[in-house]
């Protein structure tokens, strides 16, 4: 497809289980972002990649969260030993270059994670 693709769309994990969320950005997009959106709130920044380089991971809530983009295209967000507070929608977004006035950020549909 032409848009940002995320998988799985829905994931139910038992507390303590590890999960991996995949993002396929729009082809050729340099910048890739992960956001976390809790119910009833706006998205919150997790991390930013420019090609394969993770330039900012200041939003990752704990060391259980890890993101990678080894070849500068597909990205994976991994959450180890999931906890109930990790339940949220995880949004991936990409943009052609730096997301300033000329570069719109395009979002995927999100991966809905529920930890039980």
């Amino acid at each position: 497809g032409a848009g940002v693709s995320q998988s799985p769309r829905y994931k139910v994990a038992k507390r303590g289980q590890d999960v991996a969320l995949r993002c396929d950005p729009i082809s050729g997009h340099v910048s890739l972002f992960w956001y976390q959106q809790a119910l009833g709130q706006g998205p919150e920044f997790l991390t930013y990649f420019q090609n394969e380089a993770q330039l900012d991971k200041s939003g990752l809530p704990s060391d259980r969260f890890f993101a990678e983009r080894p070849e500068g295209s597909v990205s994976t967000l991994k959450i180890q030993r999931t906890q109930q507070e990790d339940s949220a929608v995880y949004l991936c977004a990409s943009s052609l270059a730096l997301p300033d006035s000329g570069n719109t950020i395009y979002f995927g549909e999100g991966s809905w994670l529920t930890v039980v």
Partner: protein
Amino acid sequence: DQQVKQNSPSLSVQEGRISILNCDYTNSMFDYFLWYKKYPAEGPTFLISISSIKDKNEDGRFTVFLNKSAKHLSLHIVPSQPGDSAVYFCAASLYNYQLIWGAGTKLIIKP
């Protein structure tokens, strides 16, 4: 500490009338402001943006106004249409890549 606030969780407007969605921010370092629209079970889609050096930007039925002294921006939709019913998020740009988001306002357009 919310840097971007949307104080109205929901707004109901008659079809054909003007919808006005408001957003307040606290950080004067924000350099760009954006509005996103979100339907249920979909990701946010970009609507319109405004640079901090401007006070108005218009795109078809959508106009965004920025009042820097009041640290306030608003999105005007006129005329409102049923397809405009969605959740609208205000976001502010920091360091050219990090977006700080409000909690959203659910807009309901009544026929």
